[in-house]
């Protein structure tokens, strides 16, 4: 059948078919791990990301391709987890941008959108690696441009795009040595190919999934599962222990401003970066959200006139709300002081001034609906005058200076992190990576002016960075790759220090730590000069396998020997599932004998898959 264009409904159906195909292949993609350990669940991550995208797509059905693509992009962005998931979200972010305003889409437009997706994804990834999903997407997009010139038939077009994607996927082992060594293709690339296979199946009228297609389909359309894992909504700051007490004059940036810039149609792109920099000169708590012709601006500023002038240069200003937070604060202190003459202002924070309209959690945090909604500033003001004694809203200026979010796995490790001062510990690690939305939810749940995020896993880094970009407050992601690194970073954290001093000290601290892990090989392989049989225990130092043995304990001995070859004063053992208490005791005894100068500490970490995690600090 020949089809020359897709409307919003058809495009949506095509995407659903792709999602179903991806979902059906989840475990197959998981099995393509490039490492002989269960490292990163690419299939699960991509599927969960796609499921979140599809949920949003179903939530906002549209006859127009542009709007449907936008809904998908938004859902993906919030649901993104794992590196491949984040890259997937970027591919469709660019796609949606290209499709913006289109009712239908033909082959040329489709090709353009794929290309824009690739451009966006390459920009988002700090160090793009060839031989991955990125390469597959890029080659497919290049083919799409060629095919669109040759044929207007979308089925034909998609067939060629898929063929190129598959061919590129098969070449990934040539590009990425680690794939070749293990003899697999790239798992993220495989996920993308599955998606395209689903697209083609829809266009040809074939079922996307050979068996149980209907079930897969239903699963893909169900509400995103991560919704239930979301972090609780922000609590009123009165309950926060680390609350700062506020002097009126300590509000540095007293003017709380919120407004929209209505951009002229077809005007030059909004220079977000330079605009942000201009606001930063005399302001903080800056949020800029671009949605089509509208830019939503929120800032606390010292010079409201300057802010309006900068903004005016980019369009008409609407829904203006400007509040003087010092004035509000004084107002609120007055009745309290009058009621108890001679006493100091209440110290418990009940007299705090509500400040910024807080973007609600979830999708609305992007402010995409704000243009048509009730201007937030208005009811904020009403709340202040009507019931000054009511529960205070979280206030940027009476929040703790910092909040810390860490990702960890295992109840014991979570406890350790909490005992070191982490406010929210998100569960996630080798599998079930937290999504951008989970991280964002955790960040927004904190009553803190700025937030530090410890991903403690390279697979979570991108999602954490994405969350940092979307957050309504400054977020610093410390690129910790392991749980011991995260703990070392936390140890160096000093609440009362400046952020830059903290980041510097924490970075220095975590970079000093050596991390070793003991796990079981899932397949026979040859790596790092070792012959490894499936089921054997391997000791991994950083990313290199340095030991393979038949027991976890033996692998532990050899790994520790390597880790301590350059000295080391502090050894921490985190025991995981599958580690017997006696094994840990024997490791400790052995360390005491061999390295009498080292201080050894053992804790029950509770992480799955890794009977032992070791940290050695010089």
């Amino acid at each position, binding site marked *: 059948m020949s089809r020359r264009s897709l409307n919003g409904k058809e495009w949506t159906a095509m995407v659903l078919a792709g999602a179903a195909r991806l979902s059906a292949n989840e475990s197959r993609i998981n099995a393509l791990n490039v490492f002989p350990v269960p490292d990163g669940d690419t299939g699960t991550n991509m599927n969960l990301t796609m499921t979140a995208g599809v949920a949003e797509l179903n939530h906002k059905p549209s006859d127009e391709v542009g709007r449907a693509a936008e809904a998908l992009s938004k859902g993906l962005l919030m649901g993104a987890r794992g590196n491949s998931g984040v890259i997937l979200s970027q591919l469709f972010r660019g796609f949606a941008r290209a499709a913006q305003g289109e009712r239908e889409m033909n082959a040329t437009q489709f090709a353009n959108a794929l290309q824009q997706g690739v451009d966006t994804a390459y920009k988002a990834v700090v160090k793009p690696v060839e031989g991955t999903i990125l390469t597959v997407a890029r080659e497919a997009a290049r083919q799409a441009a060629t095919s669109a010139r040759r044929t207007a038939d979308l089925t034909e077009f998609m067939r060629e795009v898929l063929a190129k994607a598959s061919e590129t996927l098969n070449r990934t082992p040539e590009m990425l040595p680690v794939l070749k060594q293990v003899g697999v293709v790239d798992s993220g690339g495989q996920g993308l190919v599955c998606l395209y296979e689903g697209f083609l199946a829809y266009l040809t009228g074939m079922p996307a999934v050979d068996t149980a297609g209907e079930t897969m389909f239903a699963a893909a359309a169900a509400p995103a599962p991560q919704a239930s894992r979301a972090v609780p909504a922000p609590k009123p700051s009165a309950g926060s222990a680390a609350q700062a007490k506020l002097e009126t004059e300590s509000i540095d940036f007293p003017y709380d401003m919120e407004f929209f810039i209505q951009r002229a149609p077809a005007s030059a792109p909004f220079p977000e970066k330079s605009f942000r920099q201009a606001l930063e000169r005399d302001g903080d708590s800056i949020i800029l959200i671009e949605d089509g012709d509208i830019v939503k601006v929120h800032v606390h500023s010292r010079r409201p006139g300057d802010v309006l002038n900068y903004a005016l240069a980019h369009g008409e200003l609407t829904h203006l709300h400007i509040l003087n937070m010092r004035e509000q604060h004084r107002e609120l202190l007055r009745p309290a002081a009058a009621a108890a003459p001679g006493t100091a202002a209440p110290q418990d924070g009940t007299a705090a001034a509500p400040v910024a309209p807080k973007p609600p959690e979830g999708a609305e945090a992007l402010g995409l609906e704000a243009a048509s909604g009730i201007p937030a500033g208005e009811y904020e003001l009403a709340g202040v005058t009507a019931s000054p004694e009511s529960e205070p809203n979280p206030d940027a200026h009476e929040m703790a200076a910092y909040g810390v979010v860490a990702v960890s796995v295992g109840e014991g490790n979570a406890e*350790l992190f909490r005992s070191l001062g982490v406010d929210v510990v998100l569960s996630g690690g080798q599998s079930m990576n937290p999504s951008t939305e989970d991280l964002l939810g955790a960040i927004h749940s904190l009553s803190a002016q700025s937030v530090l995020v410890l991903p403690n896993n390279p697979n979570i880094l991108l999602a954490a960075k994405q969350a940092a970009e979307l957050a309504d407050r400054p977020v610093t992601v410390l690129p910790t790759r392991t749980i011991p690194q995260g703990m070392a970073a936390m140890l160096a954290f000093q609440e009362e220090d400046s952020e830059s001093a903290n980041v510097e000290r924490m970075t220095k601290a975590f970079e000093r730590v050596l991390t070793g892990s003991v796990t079981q090989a899932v397949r026979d392989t040859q790596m790092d000069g070792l012959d490894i049989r499936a089921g054997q225990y391997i000791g991994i130092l950083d990313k290199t396998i340095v030991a393979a043995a038949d027991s976890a304990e033996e692998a532990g001995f050899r790994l520790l020997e390597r880790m301590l070859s350059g000295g080391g004063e502090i050894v921490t053992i985190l025991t995981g599932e599958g580690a017997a208490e006696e094994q840990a005791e024997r490791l400790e005894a052995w360390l005491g004998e061999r390295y009498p100068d080292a201080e050894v500490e053992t804790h029950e970490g509770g992480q799955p898959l890794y009977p032992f995690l070791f940290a050695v600090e010089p």
Partner: protein
Amino acid sequence: MASVALVTDSTADIPRELRDRLGISMVPLKVMFGSETYLDNIELQPDEFYQKLTRSQALPTTSQPSPADFYDVFKKLTDEGRSVVSVHLSGAFSGTYQSAVIAKSMFEDGADITVIDSCSASYGYGHIVVAAAELAARGAAAEEVVAEVHRLRRAMRLYVLVDTLEYLQKGGRIGKAAALVGSLLNIKPILTIDDGGVITSVDKVRGQKRAMARIAELLEANLGSRPINLMIALTPGFDETAKELSALLKQRFDVRSYLETAIGPVVGTHAGPGTVGVFVTPA
């Protein structure tokens, strides 16, 4: 006899012979083990105290001297026609300073008594009292002595290593280091006493050796290679760390004078056995 007399309390941890030689008057706090009450550093000496502490089920409690205790001392000294400079344990830790202030208010306006909150503890102000007494012995006037006390407080670098934060927490003296309590990892906080006389954490490291190295680093960052006066307060019987630390610092710095003193029962009650205090002034 010098015209200015120095008064302090027992938590300054000044060795007895030094106190006697310089004529420093000391008003003791009290330590209570159950129903038994001892005068700090008089009826109960440090080595005896730590033995008792490890044997005792319940933690001892402490109490400040009464205003009357100070009044008697002040009265005797002013009757001799002398000016009094009375320097005490941080008001954030104890009501001792308060008692001394009340005692002063019981005198007619003519009495020349200056009561100072050292915003410090143990030899962190014990040294200041000693230096002030030496100045007074050379004939300095009260204002000069008072100025010297304030100058030395600013110049004093002090770091405290506790074996555990438990004692500080139970005694309610933990101040801003409270955030470190409850850590499951074996963290060694490096504490100091800030300008307001409150305990605060400077840094936290893992392991005793690292803690010592870090203190040396902090002192180097603060004082460079200037020669120093080094004073160490330790708990008798639990003094391994103190010995290692003093050896390390002597190696790293040009130490012009060195003094070792014992942390007395009252301070020991709140800091716990194994505590080490390092006090440094530029020489």
